[in-house]
């Protein structure tokens, strides 16, 4: 998929910085944002996010 951070941010109603922070692992989104992202990519939340060993 050819999608920019801005496209995703607009689609799920957050800022571009928030998408960047999630991608770089500096911000853990709420389940609502995770579900919106999963719906946008037409996949499951587990396909996008996973638990880290320290979680």
């Amino acid at each position, binding site marked *: 998929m050819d999608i920019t951070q801005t496209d995703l*941010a607009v689609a799920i109603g957050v800022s571009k910085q928030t998408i960047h*922070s999630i991608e770089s692992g500096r911000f853990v989104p709420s389940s609502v944002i995770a579900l919106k992202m999963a719906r946008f990519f037409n996949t499951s939340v587990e396909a996008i996010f996973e638990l880290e060993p320290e979680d």
Partner: protein
Amino acid sequence: MYGHQYKKWGVVVSVIGFITMMITRFGKVLFLKKYSLDQQYAVFEWIMLFGLILVMFCKEEFEDERAKAIRLKALQTAFIIEQAVLLAMALVTGTYKSAGPIDASLLFAVSALGIIMYLLIFHVGLYFDFLWDFEDRGLLENWRNLNKNKWGMLVYLVLAAIAFLIITFI
């Protein structure tokens, strides 16, 4: 909270307040003929503070959950720093008999320090997040992880010290 469109007006008002404060203190220019220079300085202090308060209560363009989380953390940090400054001042004035009574300008300085600290931490955290290794683990956990956040914290502390020196001693 107010809409994002009012934020720029808060910035304009606070900058005008700060510039006129500096002109009053260093240029000795009297704009308000009914007042003395010190009274005029106090009036412009309040104008600056009003602008900062307006900025403080305005939403960001994208007030999403990350912005709210950083806002909360900025409030927590600014509150702790302001309390530390207040306690340190109480200790100093309570220990040394020669210290004079706390006047209104000092109370103003402490209040302005808290607001400036909050705005600095919030905006640096929101727009320069490479400085702030954000982890949703609460304030105490982040203070313990200072070795991760040391550059960000150093920047905050230097900016806070400069802000406090400006509003206290100028």
